[in-house]
């Protein structure tokens, strides 16, 4: 009796489930592309955020004067038609194209001026790129089509950072300011851009949806059957993103998935995995100012005690490329002949024996929730254990770690992490990570070497490309010889996309998320 009832209940449940399914089946293909993003879109304000995880809202809803394309990335004028640079390298004059904001009003030079001044006043997002180089109020608009940036000091990287000045509709934002907030509350959930797509709907708990902007200045002739609509949804769980791609719910997700998930995706008939060498290095910061790490022999012992091949070939299944210096291999200024360190415990012992003073227990930092950093720390611990160096691993969340990184006392002895591409210039890595003036801010190694610093300072302001390249190559070698950090690999990007999606253009800065080039077959 009970079995009969149970069986009937199951049948009813199954029928109900199937009926519901039939009623709600939707077609997501055609002109719509759904991207499953691991980071939540907490805000859409392009001047409040600067992370790679949420780059899609910036590059699809907004335009900059310049834009990065492809891999290796090349910089092209975008909203700007041309740029003139003065001989002293201090004045950059941009001439704007004819372009419209999403509300139909023209993009004018005054909007660019408002945008850079807003960034400087908010002190958020990309502010640090312009701090000390562009003074508030120094950018002028002599006419509607001309913007003049007058730098406080020469900067060879200025042009490379210009794409981060996302141009907002000044009038619209000002009209929505409340209590002098520069329109941050309003712009966090609305769109004031001129980008290829126009915001349709936004829910911080779900993501955002945008429609193709027909009047975009670049036009749509270059793409056959461009997307009508894009949707970026927050899907935190890796498994859900992968399964969603496999069953066709999503058409793309981030390209830095664990290798087991990439392998799983490759087995799906619905998915193709696009592979590119990115510009995201994995390394360990070494606290160079604290004993015993302030002794070059101890740093060399650390570098010889790490099993690079074991980590890359076994743990990561060869999915990344060995990168022996702080600059990605595929970035100009990286010395092609640098071999770097290998696992050599005998050499590690030799250097350890030359260390002056006692060697205490070393703290190996890792980022909780980022398995690779913990695996790398464990691997180094194993190597150091064999040469008689005691260690302890401390895995903490990114907010904890990022706070400690800026404090000389609290900083770990070593910390494994990645350095991403914010702009494609060697200064993004070497200048940020090892210039003396960045100590405590972006130089979390407390490393200051007069010779390296001179090379970096010179390269930061010079307009002579050959000199810059030579300086960066030399600085790379010096940093490697100095064992300033443990430099492990450069990431490969494995972008999983629905097999019907065509035209994905990967750039390390945009991570293949600029949707204007994409179509669905």
């Amino acid at each position, binding site marked *: 009796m009970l079995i009969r009832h149970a069986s009937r209940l199951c049948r009813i449940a199954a029928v109900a489930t199937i009926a519901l399914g039939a009623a709600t089946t939707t077609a997501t293909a055609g002109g719509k592309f759904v991207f499953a993003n691991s980071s939540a879109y907490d805000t859409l304000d392009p001047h409040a955020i600067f992370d790679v995880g949420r780059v899609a809202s910036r590059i699809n809803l907004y335009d900059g004067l310049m834009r990065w394309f492809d891999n290796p990335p090349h910089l092209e004028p975008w909203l700007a038609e041309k740029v003139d640079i003065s001989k002293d390298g201090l004045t950059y004059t941009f001439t704007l194209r004819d372009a419209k904001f999403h509300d139909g009003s023209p993009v004018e030079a005054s909007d660019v001026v408002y945008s850079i001044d807003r960034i400087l006043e908010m002190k958020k997002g990309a502010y*640090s790129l312009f701090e000390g180089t562009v003074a508030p109020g120094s950018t002028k608009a002599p006419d509607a089509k001309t913007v003049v940036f007058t730098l406080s000091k020469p900067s060879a990287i200025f042009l490379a950072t210009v794409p981060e000045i996302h141009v907002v509709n000044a009038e619209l934002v000002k009209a929505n300011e409340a209590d002098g907030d520069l329109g941050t509350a309003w712009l966090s959930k609305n769109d004031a851009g001129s980008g290829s797509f126009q915001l349709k709907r936004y829910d911080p708990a779900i993501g955002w949806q945008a429609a193709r902007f027909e009047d975009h200045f670049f036009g749509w002739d270059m793409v056959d059957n461009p997307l009508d609509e894009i949707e970026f949804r927050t899907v935190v769980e890796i498994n859900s993103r992968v399964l969603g791609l496999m069953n066709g*719910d999503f058409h793309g997700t981030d390209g830095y998935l664990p290798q087991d998930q990439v392998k799983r995706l490759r087995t799906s008939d619905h998915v193709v995995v696009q592979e590119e060498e990115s510009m995201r290095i994995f390394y360990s910061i070494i606290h160079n100012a604290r004993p015993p790490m302030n002794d070059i022999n101890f740093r060399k012992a650390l570098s010889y005690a790490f099993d690079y091949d074991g980590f890359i070939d076994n743990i990561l299944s060869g999915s990344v490329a060995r990168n022996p210096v702080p600059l990605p291999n595929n970035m100009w200024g990286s010395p092609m002949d640098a071999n770097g360190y290998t696992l050599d415990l005998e050499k590690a012992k030799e250097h350890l024996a030359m260390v002056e003073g006692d060697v205490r227990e070393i703290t190996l930092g890792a980022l909780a929730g980022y398995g690779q950093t913990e695996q790398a720390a464990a691997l180094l611990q194993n190597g150091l254990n064999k040469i008689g160096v005691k260690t302890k691993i401390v895995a903490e969340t990114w*907010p904890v770690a*990022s706070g400690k990184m800026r404090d000389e006392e609290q900083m770990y002895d070593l910390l494994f992490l990645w350095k991403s591409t914010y702009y494609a210039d060697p200064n993004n890595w070497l200048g940020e990570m090892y210039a003396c003036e960045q100590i405590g*801010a972006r130089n979390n190694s407390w490393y200051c070497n007069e010779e390296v610093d001179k090379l970096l300072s010179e390269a930061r302001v010079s307009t002579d490309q050959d000199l810059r390249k030579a300086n960066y190559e030399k600085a790379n070698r010096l940093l490697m010889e100095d064992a300033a950090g443990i430099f492990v690999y450069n990431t490969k990007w494995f972008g999983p996309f629905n097999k019907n999606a065509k035209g994905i253009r990967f750039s390390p800065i945009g991570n293949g998320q600029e949707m204007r080039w994409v179509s669905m077959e």
Partner: protein
Amino acid sequence: MRELVLTLNRLLWLVPTLLGLLAITFTISHIIPADPIAFIAGDNASAEQIAALKAKFGVDKPIPVQLWNYVIGVAQGDFGVSLYTQRPIADDLVSRLPATLELAFVSILLSAVIGIPLGVLAAIDRNSWLDHVLRVFTVSGLAIAAFWLAILFQLLFAMELGITPLQGRVDGWGPEPVTGFFLIDSAWTGDWETFRSVAHHMILPAVTLSFPAMATVMRFTRAGVLDAINSNYVDYQNAMGVPRRVVVWRYVLRNALIGTVTQLGLIFGNLIANAVVVEAVFDWPGLGLYAVNSILQSDYNAIMGFTLVMGAVFIIANLLVDISHGLIDPREAG
């Protein structure tokens, strides 16, 4: 009368309870060595940028001052601004709370509707094959991690059989929010297609969430029924020739349910806790996911807001349980 006094008493205790909860959570979240401002500012931020943001958000002040400012703000209905999103916390909570509550209500309803009858059946046929099968079910319900079960359900029902959606709350973006409860909003506007979509999306997360709760309900109902079934008044009813079905469902169950209903209040707290995991797997845009992100980002105000709201929901749920005792057992009503 006794119920009214009880209700007022509980409501009065709500304030000091929440204050205590707030003080503990505030202290814990602020003494961990995290620096949310450095996190928010990004890894390229300068020291000046971080200092300016700290001053802006008031986190450069001593912790007691921050706590005092926060309590004053909450008393005026201001939960502060999220360090991360810069939106009012109240807005974030209001937009996400209905999703979590809807999931929790449906789950608890499922637990009760399925768990109570099965618990009764297990008790009536004690030590029968059905009782043994249900025992395995309840042990599994309590032992299996919600995260693992959720992924299994996804693989079986969404990927293999293709009869349920994989994730999300609704196809598309859902109905225009009135209450924020999609089932109610879509039914209210007569949008039955959306209603079906919401119900369809609800199946896997609700079943996952209700599985351990159902096991608890079943165990407590079984124990309660066994206890009641051996009472003198049941012997009396049996001796009077009252049909067994009537005895069980009218007399035994009513007494047996008191323990179960008490458990439902406590289970509600567990449901909210488990929702954090289930929401993450099923990409359910509720408060659980918000809480996880807030904790990972050390977004103090968001953590405080979440804790306060969930504390209040938990206390109110238990208050309702106390009131319902009076309805089930007239002796409790005084």
